[in-house]
């Protein structure tokens, strides 16, 4: 079973639209949305949720007001500026990282650590096969842990169903959720666009791939929007000996398919849809050669 992760560094380059189409193209796979901060893939795959799981990770400190003497030991020790002192201590749920130092040192034992229910995980059926997705609650932390959990569930489902692939939609950036989604993956598809920001962020995300020793292949989306910058991206990839395996032209059908809530390749036979089909063929070849 091969695990393929689609990432981008820069946001808004078209990861989710491409993953939606790949979900329609690839046979015998399980799909997972690991952009748990701002998951969008369900808007294309229209899942029927079969099972919902609460995601509990870490703890949050909670003050029992009637026991708090207002001594401020907790606010003195907290490294995260999560405690403000009134008559009693007040702990900000969004700032608390759940380290438990306040609870440990409270002379009145007025602080308890509650399990932190910080998201939901969904096991769904779609017209394109099984789909594992999640939503981190707004403002929460532990996105990396939730990503790891979604990946694990997707792998288990793929094993049960003898699937050939796990196809993962990743998060933007290079931080916690991205690191959790790329480590030990079979290969990465990095989606970029011909802009200076795209070029800059591509460099950092390819550095990340090299850091974790995961092979990466680049897809240049909307390549015809600014050809001089597309050339710069081609040069950067060739300097790094990274292959560009697909060039998708700008096509209004991409936005229209999103409005229709359907993967592009099931919506249009236009130039972008054709390019995505080619993209997958090239990617498949690359990972077979690499095996």
């Amino acid at each position: 079973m091969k695990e393929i992760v689609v990432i981008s560094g820069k946001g808004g380059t078209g990861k989710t639209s491409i993953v939606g189409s790949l979900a329609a193209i690839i046979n015998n796979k399980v799909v997972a949305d690991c952009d748990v901060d701002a998951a969008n893939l369900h808007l294309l795959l229209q899942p029927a949720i079969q099972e919902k799981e609460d995601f509990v990770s870490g703890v949050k400190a909670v003050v029992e007001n009637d026991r708090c003497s207002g001594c401020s030991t907790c606010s003195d020790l907290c490294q995260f500026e999560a405690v403000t002192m009134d008559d009693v201590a007040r702990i900000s749920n969004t700032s608390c990282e759940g380290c438990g130092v306040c609870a440990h040192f409270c002379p009145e034992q007025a602080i308890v650590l509650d399990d932190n229910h910080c998201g939901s995980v969904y096991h769904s059926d779609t017209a394109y096969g099984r789909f594992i997705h999640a939503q981190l609650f707004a403002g929460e932390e532990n996105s990396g842990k939730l990503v790891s959990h979604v990946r694990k569930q997707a792998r288990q489902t793929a094993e049960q169903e003898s699937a050939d692939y796990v196809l993962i939609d990743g998060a933007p950036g290079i931080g916690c959720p991205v690191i959790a989604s790329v480590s030990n993956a079979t290969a990465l598809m990095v989606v970029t666009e011909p802009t200076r920001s795209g070029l800059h962020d591509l460099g950092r995300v390819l550095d990340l791939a090299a850091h974790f020793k995961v092979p990466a292949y680049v897809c240049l989306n909307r390549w015809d929007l600014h050809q001089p910058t597309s050339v710069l991206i081609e040069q950067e990839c060739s300097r790094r000996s990274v292959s560009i395996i697909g060039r998708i032209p700008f096509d209004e059908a991409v936005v229209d398919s999103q409005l229709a809530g359907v993967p592009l390749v099931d919506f249009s036979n236009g130039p972008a849809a054709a390019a995505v089909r080619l993209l997958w063929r090239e990617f498949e070849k690359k990972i077979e050669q690499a095996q």
Partner: protein
Amino acid sequence: MQVVVGSGKGGTGKTLLSTALAQCWGDRVQYLDCDVEEPNGHIFLRPELSSRKECTVTVPEIVRDKCSLCGKCRDICQFNSIAIFGETIMTFGDMCHSCNGCFLVCEEEAILETTRLIGEVETGHSGDVEFVHGRLRVGEAMSVPLIKAVKQHAGGDGLTIVDAPPGTSCPFVESVTDGDYILLVTESTPFGLHDLQLAVEVVRSVDKPFGVVINRAGLGDVSVKKWCENEGIPVVLQIPFERSIAEGYAQGMSLLESKPSLRSRLRELLEEISR
């Protein structure tokens, strides 16, 4: 006054807008790039950098000769950064949140404070704009302490523009906490609307005044506008979907360079916000 530009969804135009807001204001203005995973503000502002400072966090190192293997440090650590196997005690600095718990519970003074490099903060100037950004070290997972280090430069009696990271989790929350007003940039597509709704939930939970900016207006449908109307959220600016803006952006031109006529509207917007 501190204005934070955020979005939920990535690639909606946070940096395009926030750099232009800083440029249109003229004097006594700061631009802080808190998207430390993928900072892009420097591409549009082209600052002359004058300082670079490494950003580190405190992590424990065990002095084995002093350690009694009592396990108190391992027990207080909620992040599994300290493990004991038989006579061996190990620390995992990458997982440490720098809460200080282990230092506080150790009775043998067997834990030394060492540091882990998480990135760097660079400062400089772009014309009248004071420029600050953070660059997360590639391979580092924890961005919040670096965002805090960037925000430490906020101050003065002028205007501070904060360019926030995408998403709705802890890095975004850290970027908005000190804001006086939040601008949420989106595009009118199903993905844009969905992620805007999540970002609004965060901004409401921290109780900040906010407004919505629709970028690439004309693309997609009218769902964002309709939703904002129903929710009583002001749409404070629309940036049209124009090839000249997209081409300028591709080359690293700021919005004021590719669409100079927006300057007065952006100034007006900032003046409305500060009232």
